[in-house]
């Protein structure tokens, strides 16, 4: 079994030798979205929180009011609903890191159009992947050993 923690130590990515991978969260995520113009939502910030159960979406509307949804509430919104406010928020956060929590494939990158600006997306894309070293399949090292006495630059 391969265990990968992505976005810091946020997700456990499990693979049991097959091609289908499942994602399990080890940390929670708080995604802030803002209604930048009527019915248009953008992600302004994504940050981790220790417990998955504390994951939530904080929406700020044009009138300044805010509303919070848990991850479970967000998942329950009908994916095909693009007309309601919650449906639009769901669609936006699906394009961000929260999308991985809601079932989007890990191979699918975040969408620039979901973010309010480049900095917000860059923050989410800076991510180290960690793995238990004993779980690396067929990992080999020691290449080039003993050949370090000379420069290989040009």
């Amino acid at each position, binding site marked *: 079994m391969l265990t990968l923690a992505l976005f810091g130590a946020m997700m456990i990515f499990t693979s049991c030798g097959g091609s289908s991978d499942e994602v399990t969260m080890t940390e929670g995520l708080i995604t802030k979205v803002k209604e930048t113009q009527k019915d248009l939502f953008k992600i302004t910030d994504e940050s981790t929180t220790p417990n998955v159960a504390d994951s939530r979406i904080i929406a700020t509307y044009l009138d300044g009011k805010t509303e919070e949804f848990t991850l479970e509430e967000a998942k329950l919104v009908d994916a095909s609903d693009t007309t309601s406010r919650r449906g639009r928020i769901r669609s936006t956060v699906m394009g961000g890191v929260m999308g991985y929590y809601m079932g989007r494939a890990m191979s699918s990158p975040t969408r620039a159009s979901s973010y309010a600006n480049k900095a917000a997306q860059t923050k989410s894309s800076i991510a180290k992947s*960690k793995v238990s070293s004993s779980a690396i399949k*067929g990992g080999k090292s020691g290449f*080039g050993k003993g050949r370090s006495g000379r420069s*290989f630059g040009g």
Partner: protein
Amino acid sequence: MERVVQEDLSVDKRIIPIVSPSEKYFKTNGWEWFLGGGEWTYLGDHLIGLSRMEAMEYIRAADDLYRIFEEGVQYVIDNNLWMDLGIHPNLVEQIRFSWTHRERHQHLYGRFDFAGGINGQPVKLLEFNADTPTTIPETAFIQREQMIHTKLGNNQFNTLFDDLVATFERLGKANPGKSRTVLFTSMGHEEDEINARTMMRAAEAANFEVDYEPLEDVIFSADDGIFVEEDNGEATRYDFWFKLVPWEYISHEEPELMDILNKLVLNGKVTILNPAYSLVMQSKALMKYLYDLHPNHPHLLKTSFEAPSRNARTKYVEKVLFGREGENVTIYDENNFSMDKRDGNYGKYDKIYQDYAELPNVNGITYYQPMVYWTGNPSAISFRKRDSLIMDEDSEFIGHLLT
């Protein structure tokens, strides 16, 4: 050795003495290696003055030649010239793949080595270091520090570091599905590590998470990716791998690693810098085909797989396809006598024969070889200096000043 004095390539009136930056400057940056030791000195005690017009000629030549090298890569691929270029069959598929997807597999940087270019003499290409060029910190930072420390103003053609940051930013944008994590690797020689770590600074400035690890300590898994083991039993995986390890070394000397890298790149698990197609540009045999395609090109020297006949009475240079630091190079005069020669460890590679081109020099004794860094555009000029025609591992680094 017969001394060849060419007045029109003389730089003796362009020597601009400098005051060396302080030892603290080098120590602060982790660059004590540049200070040398014993009788060995690496950093010259002067800059070379260049007019803006001369600098522009070098810049234009690099700009022009890079497009021709790109054309050359396509020509090699279309005509399967791998054997002629000395490229091992185990690298071919990755070269084709990285070239087809070069928007994602970007060529980060390279360095053109020139002759000529002074006093209105034509700029001539000696070779293009497209895979693992060094002299990055000297060119990007030290020559600038030498200029400023000597209070010579701020007149250099040198945007190398900023341009390297920009190349990493472009790389990140072109690979939106990958995490911005890049591992830097060299084979342990201090000079190479310093160069790799300077590239690491550029990536860090472009918001990549970075680390350095010598090649022998990097974990390669054909299934899972490229990793560095941490102290806590975990390993960190990197989506990008910068290797100051030549492709021809990996393909010829480490075929098992080559096989793993092929799988990782072709399966989209890792992006390697410089990409595999940079080896096509690095092979000196490419210059033979470039010359065949552009025989009248102002910056290309006639290059062949056969030495010129004695009757041709031509000065020429014999080089191996993949050689470094002047090793396995011989320069012949019109009578086919050796003017300068270096033995070396690269004799197993095939050879090319290139027309000789004169370097800028002082009295035909001290020679200066101009270099132009390429990062998607020309980024900096600097020089190597040696009291011989061949620039070898004892060459000094010399900065420049626009006058």
